[in-house]
C-alpha cells in the first residue's frame, strides 16, 4: 500500500530529511509485519485480530526540503505523533530508511544519536514538557547545559532566544507562574536555543485557548521568516495546517493519503476522505487561480486583465466580477486559461 506521491519541486539530493518506507508496528513480533505483504495489506482491526499488532505508521515515504515547513496532518489515531517521534528515534522505527543530511539515522549509535539530538534536532511538545523545578532561563538553557557549555555562555544564549520569542523579563519566573501560552513560548525558546537544523512540533498549540493559539501560529510564521529553520509540524487542525504549511501530508490509520500544497489538497483531493476532510475550508482563501481556469471558448475576447496563477481566488474575485471580459491566467509567458464570473462564483459561493 505504498502511496505514489509526487515531489514536484524537490530533488532527492537536496532533501534535508528523507523518509523511505517507514514502518512502526506495536505488538508481539512486530518486525515481521513490514516484510509480509499479506499481513501488511490487512487493515487495522483485521491486523490486530490476526496478530495482536497495531501498525501506527505504514510504509511512509516523503522528503523534507531545507527551510520548508512540512505539516503532517490527521485525526487522532492517524499515527502522526508516532511518526514525528520516529524521525528522531524517540520511538524506534520497525522498518524503513531515515536519512538526515545524507547520514543514515537508523545506523547511528547511542552516542551519535545523542550528539544529533543535541545539535541538529529539537522538539516542541503538546503539553510543553517543561521542568517545573527550574526557572525559565534554566529550562531554556537545559539543552546547552547537557552538552556541557559553561554557565555564562549558556545563559547568554538562552537570554537571546528568550528575547527572540517575546519572553523578555520573565526569565527568572517558574513555569507554574506562567500562563499556557507563555509556557509554550518557553518550550519554543528551549527548542531554538540549541540552534538545531530541524524543529519538530507535536501539536504544540492544541492545549491552548483559541486566541492564544492564533497568536502562537503567527509567532511561528514570524520565526520561520526570521530564522528560516526547517520545521516538521504535526497538527489535527486543518486551518492551522493551511496557514503554516508549505506542504501538507495527510495521514489516515498510519498511511499517507495525500501529499501536496494546501491548494492541491483543496483543489484536487485524492479521494473521498480528503474531500470530506477539506470540505469546510473556505475554498476561496486556499485555492489559487490555476485550479479554476478553463480553456478559453472560441468566441471569447482574449484581451482582458492578466493575473498570475498563484493568486488566491479571494484576491481575484473583485477584479473578475468587475471586468466584463474573462481574466487571463498567465504563467511566465504561457496562457494557462481564462476565468469568468461563473468560475469565480462557483468557488466563492460554494460552502
Amino acid at each position: 500500500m505504498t502511496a505514489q506521491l509526487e515531489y514536484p519541486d524537490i530533488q532527492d539530493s537536496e532533501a534535508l530529511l528523507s523518509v523511505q518506507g517507514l514502518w512502526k508496528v506495536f505488538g508481539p513480533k512486530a518486525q515481521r509485519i513490514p516484510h509480509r505483504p499479506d499481513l501488511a495489506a490487512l487493515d487495522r482491526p483485521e491486523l490486530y485480530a490476526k496478530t495482536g499488532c497495531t501498525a501506527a505508521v505504514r510504509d511512509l515515504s516523503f522528503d523534507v526540503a531545507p527551510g520548508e515547513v512540512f505539516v503532517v496532518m490527521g485525526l487522532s489515531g492517524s499515527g502522526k505523533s508516532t511518526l514525528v517521534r520516529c524521525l528522531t528515534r524517540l520511538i524506534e522505527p520497525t522498518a524503513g530508511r531515515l536519512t538526515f543530511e545524507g547520514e543514515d539515522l537508523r545506523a547511528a549509535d547511542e552516542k551519535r544519536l545523542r550528539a544529533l539530538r543535541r545539535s541538529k534536532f529539537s522538539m516542541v511538545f503538546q503539553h510543553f514538557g517543561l521542568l517545573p523545578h527550574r526557572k525559565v532561563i534554566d529550562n531554556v538553557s537545559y539543552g546547552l547545559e547537557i552538552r556541557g557549555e559553561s554557565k555564562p555562555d549558556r545563559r547568554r544564549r538562552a537570554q537571546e532566544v528568550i528575547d527572540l520569542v517575546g519572553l523578555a523579563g520573565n526569565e527568572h519566573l517558574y513555569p507554574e507562574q506562567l500562563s499556557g501560552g507563555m509556557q509554550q513560548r518557553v518550550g519554543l525558546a528551549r527548542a531554538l536555543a540549541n540552534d538545531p537544523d530541524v524543529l519538530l512540533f507535536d501539536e504544540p498549540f492544541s492545549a491552548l485557548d483559541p486566541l492564544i493559539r492564533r497568536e502562537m501560529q503567527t509567532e511561528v510564521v514570524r520565526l520561520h521568516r526570521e530564522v528560516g529553520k526547517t520545521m516538521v509540524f504535526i497538527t489535527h487542525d486543518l486551518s492551522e495546517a493551511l496557514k503554516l504549511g508549505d506542504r501538507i501530508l495527510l495521514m489516515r490509520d498510519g498511511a499517507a493519503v495525500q501529499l501536496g500544497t494546501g491548494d492541491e489538497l483543496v483543489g484536487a483531493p485524492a479521494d473521498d476522505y480528503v474531500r470530506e476532510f477539506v470540505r469546510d475550508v473556505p475554498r476561496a482563501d486556499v485555492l489559487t487561480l490555476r485550479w479554476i481556469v478553463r480553456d478559453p471558448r472560441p468566441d471569447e475576447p482574449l484581451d482582458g486583465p492578466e493575473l498570475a496563477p498563484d493568486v488566491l481566488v479571494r484576491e481575484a474575485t473583485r477584479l473578475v466580477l468587475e471586468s466584463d471580459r474573462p481574466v487571463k491566467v498567465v504563467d511566465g509567458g504561457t496562457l494557462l486559461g481564462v476565468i469568468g464570473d461563473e468560475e469565480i462564483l462557483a468557488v466563492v459561493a460554494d460552502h
Partner: protein
Amino acid sequence: MAAITSDVEVEVRRPRRSVVLGVLLVVWVAAYFVLRGIDTLVLGGQDTTALHRWLNDHRDDVGQGNAFFDAIRFVVDQFVVLLQNVISQPSFDRPVPVIGWLGVVAIAAYCAWAFGTWKVAVLTAAGLVFVGLQGLWQESMDTLALTIAAVLLSLLVAIPLGIWAGLSNRAFRVATLVLDLMQTLPTFVYLAPLVLFFAIGPAAATIATLIYAAPPAVRLTAHAIRSVPPESVEAARSLGSTRGQTLLKVLLPMSRSTVVVGINQTIMAALSMVTVAALIDAPGLGQTVLKALQTLDVGVAFNAGLAIVVLAIVLDRVTTAAGDRPWRTASVRRKVLLGAGAVGVLVAVWFSRTYVWAAEFPSDVNIGSRIAVVASDVTAWVQDVFGGFTYGVRDVVTVGLLNPLEGLLTGSPWWLVSAVLVALGAVLGGWRGAAPAAVCCALLVATGVWHDSMVTLASTLLATVVVVAVGLALGVWAGRNRRVDGWIRPVLDAGQTMPPFVYLVPFLALFGTSRFTAIAAAVVFAVPVTTKIVADGIKAVPGATVEAANSVGSSAWQVISKVQLPVARRAITLAVNQGLIYVLSMVVVGGLVGAGALGYDVAAGFAQSELYGKGLAAGLAIVLLGVMLDRVTQAAARRTQDFQGRGDKR
C-alpha cells in the same frame, strides 16, 4: 398433525457466581458432618514437628561473630548512641545531653518553618512542649533518636532501591513481591533472629524498624519515578540527555513530592514499631508503655501512647508541608526572616547548654500524671458500666459466629478445606485466584501448624468482614460529608498511631482473655486505614457524575450504591486488601490477649528456645495466609472489572 417446528435455542448460561458459592458452601458443610475430625493435623501447644526441630538446630548456624554483621552492628550502634547523646542522654561528662530541651524545640521549630510553613513550626513547638509537660521528655527524645536513626538508614537503603525499581520493570516486579513479604511478615518473627545477628541493643531495634519502615519509601519512590509526566522525560531525551542526566536533572527533582510522601510513610511506620522494639531493649516511650502494662497501669500507658501520637502528628504535618512547598524560590523577606530565625536558634541552643532550666525539662508542671489519672478513671468507669454487657456480646458473637466457622475450618480434613479454598479461589478469581490458594495451602500443611492456621484464619476472616463493613460505612459517610471528614481524620490518625498495647488492657477488662478480644483489637487497628481509603475513593468520584445522579431524583442510598461505590471500586478493593493486611499484622498481638493459635506460637517461639522453629514456621504461616487472601481478593476484583467491562453480550 401440524408439526410445531420451533427453533428453540437452548441457551446454556453460566450460573451466577453467588449460586456457585452457595452450592460450594452447602457441599462443604455436608462433607464436614460426615468427615468431621479426620486428618485435622492438630499439634499441641508445646509439641513440635521435625521441621521445627530442624529449624531449631540450624538457628545457631548463622549466629554472631560474623564480621559483616558485627561491622554493621557497630556502625548502627554508634550512630544511635551519638544521636542519643545529642538530644536525650547525659553525655560527655555532663549530666545533660549536648542540646537541652530548649535547643531541641528551637531547632525542630526552625526546621519545620524552613522546610514547611510557619503554621507547622508552631505546631511542632507546641507538640514538643506538650510532650515535655507530660513528663516524658527524655523518653520522647530517646524515641526520636531511634526513629531518626531508623528513618535515615531506611532512606539510605530505600531510595536507591526505589529508583532502580522505578527505572526497571523487572526490578519493579521483584521488589513488589519482596516488599509485600517484608510488610506482612510479623515483626516478632524476625525479632529473635535479629538479636542473634546483631546482639541486644539499639542496633537490632533499629534494623527491625528498618525492615518494617523501608518498604513504603521504596514503593513510593518507584511510583514517583514512574509518575513523572512522560513528556518532560521525552523533552529531556529529545534534547540529547544521557540516562544519568535524565535521572538527576529531570526524574528525581520532579518526583520530589511523592518521595516526600514515602518519607512520611516511613516515619509513621517507624513510630509504630516503638513498642515492639522495646521488647529488645530499645530505649524510649515503648519501654514506658510496656512497664506500665506489667502493672496494668492504663493511665501511664495511655500517657505514653499519647506522646507517641503527638510525635507522629508533628512529624506527619512537617513532612507533608515539606512536600507541598511550591517550586518558586523564597522571597527576600522570607530569607531575611529565616536568617534572623537561625540566629535565634543558635541563642536557644546556647541557653540550653548553659542553664539547667533550659537543659532539663522543668518537672514542676506535670500534666502527665493528670492525664494518666483521668485515663485510668475513664477506663475503670467504662469497665464498671459496660462490663456485664460486653461479656454477653462476646459470648454471643463467639458462640454464634466464630465457633461455627472455626469448627468448620478446623474439624474438616485438611484436604477438604484445601479443596474448598482452591475452588473458592477459582470461582472468585479464575486461575489467578485458584493457583495461589493451592500453593499456599500446600505450604501451610508443610509448616506443620495447619490446625493453628485454621483457627487464626477463622478469626481473621471474621475480623476482616467487620473491618470492611465498618470501614465502608464510615468511609462513605466521611466521603460524602466534608465536616464529618474533617473531624474523623484526626481520630483515625490517632487510632492508627496509638500503640495497640495501650488499648489492650481496657479490652481485656471488657472482654476477658479470648479470641473476641483479639478480634476487637484488630478491628480498632484496621478500621482507620480502611475508612481513609474508602473516603478518598468516594471523594474522587467526579462531582459531575454525582450531580447527574442527584438531578434525576435518586435517593441517597441509590446514589451510594449505584454510582459512588461502583465508580470507587478500585479504592474499595484496595481498602479491603489493606484492611486484611492490618488485621493480619495484629495476629501476634492478639496472641497476647488470648487468641492463641499462630499469634501465640510466634510469641512463644520468641520466648522459648525449644519452640523457636515452631515460632518461625508460624510466622511463615501468617505470611502464607496473607498472600493467599490477598491474591484471591485481588483476582476477584480484577474479574469483576473484566465482567463489567465486557458486559453480558455474546
